[in-house]
């Protein structure tokens, strides 16, 4: 096997905790009520086109993309719209959501529900992009950037490499891992679809070395597909960061402040690629995804196929409920996810995991003096100096923050993870970025 690749500087090795990597994906089933947010992506919220009392099916359009940087939102269940107003989200704030009471389980008639794999791609690139757009697909790795924009290459830009991100470097999460094991061929066909849109024959599925089963299956299958290959990467956080992955795979760097396209690459999460396969070959809009429910306080950790809008509490109950020692519930991974206030908040297109963590695993919050150990500098995969960003941010030194490239921070949190003085370095980086951005407007 070819050499394992990785990004050259920084990175950390948090405990992996991949305890669910051998748990097959199971259907989570249907809750009584789903809450479907109209904003599950970066950009403007979708415009609601249904009213209270409307009957919907799984796959019915609920809200229309508002502009280019936005995405359609579909119903994930069949039933009746009972509320079209704001509901408490995961942070406890009110968010615009469509509440649907589940009745039966009917799918829109256009969706091909057969389990057959369709390899043939008869569509033209423009048709494919249109199908992706009308399926409401966004980057499911967490960023939520609308996929149609990411796959439409503007005039003058040349893409030569499609990278499928199967790294999943966050601890605990195994949703992408399981998807690659169980839907390997669908993902490969998905890669062929994007290859066709881009007019290239070079898709690389990047998988990190702690997923041997996925590597084996994908390596075997890609032999029969021209233009799709597997590349094994070293297990290191944040290997799955878009810029880090491009550097690892191609040796190129995305110029500061620019997009992966400017390095000739497009990176898509394997979950997104699977959604593209379903949208193009099966006419299925994006309304369900794989979610890992895990954590050291989770009684029965599992990987679920979940309808968007399912309250997290529904999944938590399925895994044994919240224990007394549960200190935090995390939506997403422990490094970049969010710490939830309201566990009735729904799973969205972007929720890769629900984690129940004990206090033992929490990052300590009592801050002590910086001892200049330099561990943050060694850990930063971008080459920034987090300790200095913290100093400048504290003192509101905006020009100096600009001068040390604070805007290039990818917010991976490696610095705050490693800091022995428990300084919330990532918070300082985020605040610093915000302050710099303010002055630009």
């Amino acid at each position, binding site marked *: 096997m070819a050499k394992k690749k990785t990004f050259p500087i920084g990175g950390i090795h948090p405990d992996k905790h991949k305890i669910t990597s051998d748990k097959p994906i199971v259907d989570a089933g249907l809750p009584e009520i789903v809450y479907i947010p109209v904003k599950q992506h970066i950009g403007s919220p979708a415009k609601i086109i249904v009213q209270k009392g409307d009957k919907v099916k799984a796959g019915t359009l609920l809200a229309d993309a508002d502009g280019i940087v936005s995405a359609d939102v579909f119903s994930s269940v069949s039933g009746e719209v009972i509320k079209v107003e704001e509901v408490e989200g995961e942070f406890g704030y009110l968010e615009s959501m469509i509440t649907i009471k589940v009745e039966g389980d009917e799918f829109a008639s256009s969706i091909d529900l057969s389990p057959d794999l369709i390899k043939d791609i008869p569509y033209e690139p423009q048709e494919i992009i249109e199908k992706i757009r009308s399926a409401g697909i966004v980057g499911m790795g967490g960023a939520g950037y609308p996929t149609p924009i990411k796959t439409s290459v503007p005039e003058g830009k040349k893409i030569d490499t499609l990278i499928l991100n199967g790294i999943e470097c966050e601890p605990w999460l195994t949703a992408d891992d399981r998807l690659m094991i169980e839907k390997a061929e669908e993902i490969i066909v998905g890669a062929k679809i994007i290859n066709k849109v881009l007019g290239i024959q070079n898709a690389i599925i990047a998988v990190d070395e702690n997923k041997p089963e996925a590597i084996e299956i994908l390596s075997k299958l890609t032999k029969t597909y021209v233009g799709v290959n597997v590349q094994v990467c070293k297990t290191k956080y944040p290997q799955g960061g878009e810029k880090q992955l491009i550097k690892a795979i191609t040796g190129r760097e995305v110029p500061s402040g620019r997009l992966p396209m400017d390095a000739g690459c497009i990176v898509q999460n394997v979950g997104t690629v699977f959604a593209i396969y379903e949208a193009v070959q099966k006419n299925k809009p994006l309304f369900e995804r794989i979610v890992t429910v895990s954590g050291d306080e989770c009684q029965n950790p599992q990987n679920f196929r979940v309808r968007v809008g399912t309250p997290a509490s529904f999944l938590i109950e399925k895994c044994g409920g919240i224990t007394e020692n549960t200190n935090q519930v995390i939506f997403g991974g422990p490094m970049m996810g969010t710490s939830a206030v309201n566990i009735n908040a729904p799973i969205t297109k972007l929720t890769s995991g629900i984690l129940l963590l004990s206090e033992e695993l929490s990052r300590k919050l009592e801050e002590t003096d910086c001892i200049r150990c330099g561990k943050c500098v060694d850990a930063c995969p971008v080459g*920034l100096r987090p300790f200095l960003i913290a100093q400048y941010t504290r003192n509101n030194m905006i020009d100096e923050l600009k001068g040390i490239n604070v805007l290039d921070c990818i917010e991976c*949190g490696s610095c705050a*993870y490693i800091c022995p003085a428990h300084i919330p370095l990532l918070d300082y980086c985020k605040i610093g970025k915000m302050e710099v951005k303010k002055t630009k407007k």
Partner: protein
Amino acid sequence: MLKISTAPHTGSSTDTQTLMRDVVIALIPAALVAIAFFGIGALKVIITSVAACVMWEYLVVRYLFHKPSTINNFSAIITGMLLAFNLPPSIPAWMVLIGAFVAIVIAKMAFGGLGKNLFNPALVGRVFLFISFPVQMTLWAKPNWKDFLNADVQTGATTLGILKHLDASTSATSLTHGNSALADIPDYWDMFIGYTGGSLGEISALALLLGLIYMLWRKVITWHIPFYYIGTVFLLTGVMWLATKDVRYEPVTHLLSGGLMLGAVFMATDYVTSPMSQKGKVIFAVGCGLLTVIIRLYSAYPEGVSFAILIMNAFVPLIDKYCYPRVYGTGRK
């Protein structure tokens, strides 16, 4: 009731206290060698120094800073041990107390405490004592297994002291010509295990290397500073030795004698007073090595590690200003 936090929601189990505790553990082999070879006097110096450093820090934080005590972060204990390691075993307790005062109160707390000081506190304390009490600070005990409880130790010269006083013309001949001063130089094995004269903690390269291995294993420090510091000294003296065959330049002796091992493993690697980036650490370490060789060979002092590190400490802010990693996606530096 759920708690909330900002990302990341999990952290490394290593904190300031565990890092400092690991340094203390790494210092223990050298302390044991000192006690074994220099007897009960060495133990007294170590205990006095640690107790004094902890006391000064406690008093300053409690009565001047009016803040919660910081002595549980082990850093004062490290300073105390390192100060003791840099003293001769025969030093009177009151001098240790003064040295600890200078180290903690002047070199550390006056700058604002842990993380803020420019110079290595233990070295400042040591150099202060060295300049103030040159006689007591250079009474080098001869190591002795048998007289463990005998406080009246015999004194002799250190290896570097012997080399310093060699006349260049006579020493140009090799060891076989029977120069009487040369006969006093211990063999490599004695120097390696530490059966030689010197400061408490510097004598045994073996014990210090054990400490280094432990700290590398626990990821307390990286290999850069010790490697480049020792490597620079070895390379420079080695080249001079090959060119002149003068025994004063003999590289293995330079490696194993004096404070080089102690300085390169424990003093130059002090987080607070060394550069933040790996690049900066390499420059810092090479600078320490260069200055050590220059002072050892061309100054009035036989030993140069303390001064070399303190001088390079002063350059750390400058090194930090110009040495940092290249930022991803920006031009090559």
